[in-house]
């Protein structure tokens, strides 16, 4: 399987032609991380986003437990998933932390260079941003559902 085929299998680049994918593949730089390594921290500026090529990345949030702040897993992302998509959404700040839970290989894309490609090739920009809206909407649905379930539990326990 070629690098281009791999790229179009990623959720963010699905629907791109080989030629369009090649334009973006030229921007990618490869990053490797060992299991347990922190990839970024909540609140860091988001200047680049990643596509998981191999391994598993965990998104975490800080939870205060018995006076200690613990990084707690919210979600695990495997090959093809997008990490740090905040790099494409103002105010370009990371809203969760990330660590490698296995040895991982990522493709990193710098926002400024990706936006230049979108300017030159608006169709590519349209496809990628449509895919991004799907990724963001999925996260929104998950978080809203989690929140409603928690509210429902509190109401059920309080007003039984």
């Amino acid at each position: 399987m070629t690098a281009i085929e791999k790229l179009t299998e990623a959720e963010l680049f699905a629907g791109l032609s080989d030629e369009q994918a090649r334009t973006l593949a030229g921007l990618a730089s490869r990053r490797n991380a060992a299991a347990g390594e922190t990839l970024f921290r909540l609140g860091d500026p988001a200047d680049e986003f990643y596509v998981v090529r191999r391994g598993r990345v965990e998104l975490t949030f800080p939870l205060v437990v018995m006076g200690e702040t613990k990084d707690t897993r919210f979600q695990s992302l495997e090959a093809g998933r997008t990490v740090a998509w905040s790099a494409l959404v103002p105010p370009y700040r990371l809203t969760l932390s990330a660590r490698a839970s296995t040895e991982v290989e990522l493709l990193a894309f710098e926002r400024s260079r990706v936006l230049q490609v979108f300017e030159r090739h608006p169709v590519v920009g349209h496809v990628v941003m449509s895919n991004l809206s799907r990724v963001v909407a999925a996260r929104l649905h998950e978080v809203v559902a989690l929140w409603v379930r928690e509210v429902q539990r509190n109401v059920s326990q309080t007003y039984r």
Partner: protein
Amino acid sequence: MLWITLVVAASFFVAFIAMGYFAVQEREEQHGREGAAAPADTPFAKPGKCPLCNAPLRRPATSEEIVFAVEHRIDAELRDIALALHSAPESFGRIFQA
């Protein structure tokens, strides 16, 4: 006179039987409603069990165990939400039911 007495007595008898029948039917309907409402209360009816996957849980003692329990719960919830999101539109509302 005897005929009238017999007709009135028979009417009372039939009315009594009908009242008994309707009372039993209403009671059965009420039982049915209570039975249907039971799943919503199930998480609270099983202390010490995960409300979603029914795995036995014990009270976590260390911060690591608490984090593990929270992560387990989020994993189970997200799995359940993902299933509901991909289910038929009529059961879409299940995404909000813990």
